[in-house]
């Protein structure tokens, strides 16, 4: 860990996490409404359902990315001075984007999905006007510009402090004769890798957004649908993965406070992050395995890299965490419990993801409920758990490590709800239930109803974490 424990812009980070916690809760409630509607427990008009679907997807992905970015900024600030104004500009542009997106959905009626798959936004069948789709695109663009500013600041500081991109990625240690003691800390390696791949992802996303925007107003400007889909899924995959890879920095920085063992950049750690940098960008064709016009080599690459992506996660991050825990003097409170849960959930979620990354499996699992099944494990029990863990750590009193009864209750409810909720998606998929259907057949509803019960537990657990954060923040401030 750093010798200089700076707390850069901690007020801004605490505010960000408060906003994120509240938005997570609201988005979870929207998810609960959708599962209850699919289960026939409540009635939701399909038009509204697809608007909720769009808001839930965009909101969860955006907020996961926001929390990952806040974690990255906070901890990178321990090693290099960062300009506060950039963070405020990033947060301001993010909020502007949120306003535009929510307005386009709930005022304009846009319901084209968070993936805005070309040319659907321009072909609503009368459900929304071009201006609503344009508002949605502009909201994404505002958020994207904010992220680019954010990464520009992170990137330039890391490059100038650690001897270029290769230095910050610890390449001298990974591929040369560099020594462990000279390598940058894990936070810097992770921050540099995510800065590189998410910047590339966002630029590709911005390009396809602008093309889609032009197409809205000038329909004769036609984009090749296969190219657009490649660009959208490249962006979408990289962006949501970046949120987890940014959030894991909280594990590198906070867990050593509980185990008393520092988390250092080893050779295998440095190599793993260079592979992550490559794999995150190369794996996206696994989203396009049922586009049989795609070159066969791309689909094979998607399958192989899906599998290989599990190795840095399981054999490096998960393995190292288990080694750190075994025999250590680990102390448990809500923060440390949620951070460990986050890595465990992420690791568990990689199993259904890898299986669905096989072309022959994908042929019967693609766009069934398997897909939300695996990514809800990544999120509820992975990234979001890490974000809640970071929130609990942010407001914890120094030297006080305890797991209160309320914390235990929150954790138990959240884990039980998260596991049950996500496993119901997987079971539904095995029964051939498609994803993203506003209205379900009667024979699918039992799983939806059970999932709704588990979903309510997730919301309750998250509510405990957020209320606790607000309450303890108030105590700390007073």
């Amino acid at each position, binding site marked *: 860990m750093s010798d200089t424990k700076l707390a850069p812009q901690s007020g801004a980070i605490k505010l960000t996490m408060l906003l994120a916690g509240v938005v997570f809760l609201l988005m979870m409630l929207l998810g609960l409404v959708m599962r209850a509607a699919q289960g026939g427990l409540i009635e939701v008009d399909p038009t509204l359902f697809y608007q909720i679907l769009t808001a839930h997807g965009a909101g969860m992905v955006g907020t996961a990315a926001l929390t990952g970015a806040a974690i990255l900024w906070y901890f990178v600030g321990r090693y290099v001075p960062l300009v506060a104004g950039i963070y405020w500009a990033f947060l301001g542009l993010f909020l502007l984007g949120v306003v535009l997106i929510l307005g386009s959905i709930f005022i304009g009626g846009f319901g084209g999905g968070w993936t805005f798959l070309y040319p659907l936004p321009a072909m609503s069948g009368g459900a929304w006007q071009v201006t609503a789709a344009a508002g949605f695109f502009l909201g994404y663009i505002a958020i994207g510009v904010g992220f680019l500013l954010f990464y520009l600041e992170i990137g330039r500081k890391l490059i100038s402090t650690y001897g270029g991109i290769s230095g910050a990625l610890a390449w001298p240690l990974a591929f040369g004769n560099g020594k462990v003691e000279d390598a940058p800390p894990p936070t810097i390696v992770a921050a540099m890798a995510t800065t590189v791949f998410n910047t590339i992802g966002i630029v590709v996303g911005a390009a396809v957004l602008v093309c889609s925007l032009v197409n809205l107003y000038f329909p004769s400007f036609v984009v090749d*649908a296969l190219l657009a889909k490649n660009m959208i899924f490249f962006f979408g995959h990289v962006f949501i993965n970046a949120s987890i890879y940014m959030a894991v920095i909280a594990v590198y920085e906070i867990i050593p406070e509980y185990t008393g063992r520092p988390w250092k950049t080893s050779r295998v750690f440095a190599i793993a992050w260079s592979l992550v940098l490559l794999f995150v960008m190369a794996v996206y064709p696994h989203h396009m395995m049922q586009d049989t016009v795609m070159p066969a080599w791309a689909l094979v690459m998607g399958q192989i890299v899906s599998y290989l992506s599990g190795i840095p996660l399981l054999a490096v991050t998960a393995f190292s*965490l*288990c080694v750190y825990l075994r025999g250590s003097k680990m102390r448990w409170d809500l923060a440390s419990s949620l951070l460990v849960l986050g890595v465990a959930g992420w690791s568990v979620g990689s199993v259904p993801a890898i299986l669905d990354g*096989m072309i022959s499996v994908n042929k019967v699992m693609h*766009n069934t409920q398997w897909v939300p099944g695996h990514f809800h494990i990544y999120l509820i029990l992975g990234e979001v758990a890490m974000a809640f863990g970071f929130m609990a750590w942010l407001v914890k009193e120094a030297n006080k490590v305890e797991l209160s009864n309320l914390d235990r209750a929150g954790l138990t409810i959240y884990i039980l709800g998260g596991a049950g909720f996500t496993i119901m998606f997987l079971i539904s998929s095995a*029964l051939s239930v498609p994803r993203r259907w506003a209205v379900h057949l009667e024979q699918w509803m039992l799983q939806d109803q059970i999932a709704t019960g588990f979903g309510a537990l997730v919301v309750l657990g998250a509510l405990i974490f957020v209320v606790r954060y607000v309450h303890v923040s108030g105590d700390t401030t007073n």
Partner: protein
Amino acid sequence: MQMMVLTVSLVLMAVVALIFVAAVRSAGIEQAPANTDRNRTFLIYGMLIVGVVVTAGSLRQWPHAISSSTETVQVNATGYQWYWELDKEEVPIGKSVIFNVHTKDATHGLGVIDPNGRLLFQTQAMPGYVNQVEYIFSEPGKHQILCMEFCGIGHHDMTSEFNVVAK
């Protein structure tokens, strides 16, 4: 296939979860130092070997292979917001059927469900392209087509059907 994938997935997920539970439970207990580097190397090589075997086994026969035989039955399926148009209402059992999948508007997904409600296969309907998928039906009866790619407010209504008949 689906139930096998679910079972394998749940078992492996449980194994990963139990490894974490064991690590959490062992925290704070004095233990002899493990040979971490050697164990990690075993894990990496083990995963690589399993990966090579699974990759070779699953791709040895290309999952999207389309037969060039003239003995196949061709079905043209076209997606519209929000209905399907098929140029055949019946296809034979036990014979290669090739679906040529088009769209006239947004992207759709053609998924075929057997009489037991089981998804047999799917492919995407991509503007400007024709995706092909080949299948040999083994069970007669009414088969449903569902839309498997979100395509707007009528997505869940975009269903159709055809018969698989013995000939």
